[in-house]
């Protein structure tokens, strides 16, 4: 029998609690940075930085609860999301397809930032008060992680370029992961490992599709992906 709901009872005032909240805020800011940017290299940089912060958050939880599985998860996050995925996207997509400036936006940057702020407020209002008890670190972090999920979705909606949509999905994934380690520190490791495996497979398949689309259409914007309708 594993000791359950340990992290769920971690208070905001402890050192680990403060570090977790700070990390979560940094992750939210990086999601906003990505939403407000227009250069492909920045998308990848922000995503990589966000993943590094995420692995730091996982390491804090692992240290606090002395959990070997969470250390493994922190290491996996750093290697796969912090290093490997940004490297692969840079080498195989940005450099090979010569992507610089993203012009395929369906709304202005300021509009999307305002919508992003509204989504963050929405996440606080719906999740914070109703579901979680007060004074715990989960109460502070879970709304932030839901906001990151929504911001990732928003990035996928306002960006029409396939590479930007891929980054948006990865940011969403980071948000889910942040929520998972704070809301459910004891989440089964086998499942988390399976999730990682799927993530890697998904990125590889998407990279193949994006390069295929780009080679055929010269630019992989969803505005030109118009053949299939109705």
């Amino acid at each position: 029998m594993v000791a359950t709901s340990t992290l769920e009872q971690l208070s905001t005032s402890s050192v680990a609690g403060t570090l977790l909240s700070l990390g979560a805020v940094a992750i939210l800011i990086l999601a906003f940075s990505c939403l407000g940017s227009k250069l492909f290299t920045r998308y990848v940089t922000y995503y990589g930085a966000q993943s590094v912060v995420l692995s730091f958050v996982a390491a804090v939880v692992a240290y606090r609860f002395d959990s070997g599985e969470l250390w493994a998860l922190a290491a996996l996050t750093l290697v796969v999301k912090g290093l490997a995925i940004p490297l692969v996207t840079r080498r195989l997509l940005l450099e090979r397809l010569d992507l610089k400036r993203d012009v395929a936006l369906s709304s202005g940057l300021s509009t999307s930032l305002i919508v992003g702020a509204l989504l963050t407020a929405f996440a606080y209002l719906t999740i914070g008060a109703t579901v979680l008890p007060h004074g715990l670190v989960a109460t502070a972090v879970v709304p932030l992680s839901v906001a990151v999920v929504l911001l990732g979705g928003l990035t996928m909606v306002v960006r029409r370029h396939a590479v930007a949509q891929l980054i948006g999905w990865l940011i969403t994934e980071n948000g889910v992961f942040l929520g998972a380690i704070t809301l459910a520190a004891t989440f089964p490791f086998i499942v988390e490992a399976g999730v990682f495996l799927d993530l890697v497979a998904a990125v590889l398949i998407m990279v193949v599709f994006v390069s295929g689309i780009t080679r055929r259409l010269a630019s992989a914007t969803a505005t030109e992906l118009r053949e299939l309708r109705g």
Partner: protein
Amino acid sequence: MTALAWAVTLPPLLGLVAVHPRCTASAAGTALSIGAAASFASAVALGVYDIGHAPAQALEGFVYIDPLACFFALTVALVVLLASLGSAAYLRVEEENGALSSFQVRLYFVFFSVFSAGMLASMFAGNLGLLWVLIEASTLASAVLVGLDAKARALEAAWKYVIISSFGVTIALVATVFLFYAGSALHLGSNQRLTWYYLFAHAHALQPGALRIAFLLAVIGYGTKVGLVPMHTWLPDAHSEAPSPASAMLSAGLLNTGMYAIIRYDAIAHASLGASYPQDILLGFGFATMFVGVMFMLRRGNFKRQYAYSSIEHMGIVSIALGFGGVLGLFGALLQVLNHAIAKAVLFLTSGQFVLGYKTREISEVRGALGALPFAGGVLVLASLAVAGTPPFGVFLSELTIVRAGFEKSPVLAGVFLVFLAVGFIGLIGSALAMATGTAPSALPAPSEPYPSRTGRLLAGVPIVGGLGLLVVLGLFVPSGLGELLMHAAKVVA
């Protein structure tokens, strides 16, 4: 029982012989078909064996076998068998006429095998986290099938498919995390807190607020896979661009996998929150889905697209049946899952005959098929009648059951349901008759025989005729063994 579950899951992996660089479509197709037949035989044996036995679990609850799992495994194994035979015929022709390279053919069989095994495995996943991992994995494998011919349209469809479903399934992961959190008051190990069996048994002790969010997010997340409106936008593209046997797998197999996950969440929510919350959500999504499905079926464009919208309609019907609830509603929902799976697999395999014979996917470019291609035209009319819910085919019986469940719940909703069914019928039968009858204008090229070789005709014909035969049997009566399995499965949830 666990051994039988492995015997259902693993045999389709025989198709992996296609990794060998000199493997041809006929060799891989034969291996895959043998595997699929073995898998289906095991699924039947498992279903028969399961009726008299208590649910079994293994590997700390990661494997769980109950009547619901057995029923869905039986359905999917049957679809895999029909689609494997269809693939063996279809891919051979595509390889011979040079439409697909040998590499693409091998890619198809490798990912088809992984896709089938992943779907079958997810039926026996007792752990909801593992269920998520397997459903996402089978989605990824199937995305390769959609983008197989690497033309701009197929890549566009595959991209839309993989990005929208991955995002949707990520929402389902959030649902999984919230469900895990909802069980924090339970003194269970971390694996057990995601094990369906334990959660269902302790449903009364789950935290209601977190469970509400978990159920809603699960319907949205897995609903993206199922094609519930408004998360359905990838579905018509993916189903129309994939090779026809792969479309059959997507429509008749993968959609049911998503529905299976929703039913598992529905059971927990039902036991914990009472009937009305999950039923209202499922009815809302179900009617929206059915409405959009039947409205788009009235368009006469690409026939594979029309069949994809018909799948959306049918998933709406299943969702509505779950929303009507009661043992009758659930019985109807499960029977509808089986009947739709067979009928839609047959219809998509039939559409393959037209794609190969007429080299088009447009309804307007196919006329007088009954005269030009008597077999294809004949089965098109029969399969359309079956999907549209005409007696003596099985879909009629299951839709009748759902209507009865609906009148028990609310006559108004049942009336709306009947109107939607009628609209869908008009759309589907209208285009089938337009394609089958009439005279072809001389401007259109005459169709060629879709399967030149005798073996090809046989391989393509057997799943279509066999599927139609099964539908007739299911339309006349539900065999007692199957009925008992269905009843047990419905009682698991209700």
